[in-house]
């Protein structure tokens, strides 16, 4: 048995299929991945993301410590601002991709569940050179995401802060159902929405209330299956697939979050030495409805030029889409390739990421 989030009983009671994910027993689907996906695009989806690691860094050296660890800039974060960043190893490969929140002199880092213990051990080794404390609040708090066009209006009655006044990738310490909570305008679906961090019992109560109030408007709990198809459509990488210890952020198309010119960080020297011929992440659109799955070979003519890292039949676009790492010679938009789908060569075109972009109102 793996770790269980405070919402586990709720998932179990509502018939969710449970799988192991990063050491946690998590809901992969409640009724149908496609229904949960579509509910998130048209109404709102509720996601239990309590398995994500929540690490607090406090003390006079916290800012410099994070600046040293992270590829993106930390020192210019505004109050409540949230920033995406990579943590690299000494070889320039990716240890994790994380979000960092600033509250005064304190910083919260949200990390992937599967990397939490690895990061804690590694950070502990570096921490003594800085005046900083690290506290892991993963199992003493809970976290949920509310994502979709109805997310803000649905949630507003439970939260004190004006949600439409919180900017994209900003957060606020406020109250949820009267108890202290962090609300951020962030997510992993390509929709507008928020993520909430609060005490376990507060998140459990908010989850039930949001479903009670929202079900008729099309609000649904959504599992890891829908989370995966949503993030693929949104062109977002997932650690373990597009990001690995052996994959650096520049080849993964995340160079925008790497500030090599402005600052030093662990892994920078190795990153700058990387071979420019290494494979790069691209989006592929396949002919037909077969799914290009992780590990399938990508070919140009008869030659293998790369491999698929994630793929799905996009519920929104009704197209077979995939992310793959290919040799730079095959990266140009419009390049015609094939994917070996269990012995048959299926035509694929290199297309721009993301596959799906929401309409901005």
């Amino acid at each position, binding site marked *: 048995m793996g770790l269980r989030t405070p919402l586990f009983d709720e998932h179990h009671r509502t018939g969710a299929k449970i799988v192991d994910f990063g050491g946690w027993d998590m809901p*992969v*689907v409640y009724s*149908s*991945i*496609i229904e949960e996906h579509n509910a998130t695009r048209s109404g709102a989806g509720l996601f239990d993301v309590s398995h994500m690691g929540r690490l607090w860094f406090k003390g006079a050296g916290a800012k410099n410590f994070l600046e040293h660890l992270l590829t993106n800039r930390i020192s210019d974060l505004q109050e409540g601002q949230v920033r995406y960043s990579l943590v690299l190893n000494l070889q320039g490969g990716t240890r994790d991709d994380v979000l960092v929140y600033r509250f005064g002199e304190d910083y919260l880092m949200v990390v992937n569940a599967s990397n939490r213990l690895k990061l804690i051990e590694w950070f502990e080794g570096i921490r003594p050179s800085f005046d900083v404390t690290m506290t892991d609040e993963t199992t003493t708090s809970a976290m949920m995401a509310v994502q979709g066009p109805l997310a803000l209006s649905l949630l507003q009655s439970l939260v004190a802060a004006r949600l439409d006044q919180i900017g994209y990738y900003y957060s606020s310490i406020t109250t949820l159902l009267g108890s202290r909570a962090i609300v951020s305008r962030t997510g992993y679906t390509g929709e507008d929405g928020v993520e909430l961090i609060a005490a376990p019992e507060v998140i459990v109560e908010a989850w039930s209330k949001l479903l009670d109030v929202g079900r008729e408007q099309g609000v649904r709990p959504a599992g890891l299956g829908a989370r995966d198809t949503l993030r693929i459509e949104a062109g977002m990488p997932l650690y373990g697939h597009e990001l690995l210890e052996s994959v650096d952020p520049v080849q993964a198309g995340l160079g925008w979050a790497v500030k090599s010119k402005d600052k030093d960080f662990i892994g920078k020297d190795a990153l700058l030495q990387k071979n420019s011929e290494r494979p790069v992440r691209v989006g592929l659109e396949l002919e037909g*409805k077969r*799914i290009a799955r992780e590990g399938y070979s990508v070919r140009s003519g008869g030659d293998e030029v790369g491999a698929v890292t994630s793929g*799905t*039949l996009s519920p929104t676009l009704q197209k077979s889409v995939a992310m793959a790492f290919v040799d730079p010679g095959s990266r140009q938009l419009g390049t015609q390739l094939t994917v070996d789908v*269990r012995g048959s060569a299926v035509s694929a075109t290199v297309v721009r990421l993301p596959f799906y972009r929401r309409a901005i109102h």
Partner: protein
Amino acid sequence: MNENDLLYARSHEWLQIVGDVGTIGITRFAVDQLTDLVYVELPPVGRALHAGDSFGVVESVKAVSDIYAPVAGEVIEANQTVVNDPSLLGTDPYEKGWLIKIRIPAGTDTSHLLSKSTYDSEVVNAH
């Protein structure tokens, strides 16, 4: 189709035999396990199948599964309606969601296949 009259394979195919024609599909349990079917591939008419041969593929958002022939026979019809709309398999696996019909040789042994109650108790409930 009465589920009690069908024969079942441990790999979750069902078989109905009427005269020398066998109709093959996959069970409700299999469909529920797969969830969100998006692609079905079936063999051409005329293909000769041995018992245990993989004759097709069903893909869901999550996974790819082979479908196996419960008995030997020659394919005489494939359900193109399900190929065009795989969701039919999810909603109606025993009627509109049938997959293929095969011509079964006389004297075919079906003793390795299970009854509905045995399939339910030994395969479904064992999960």
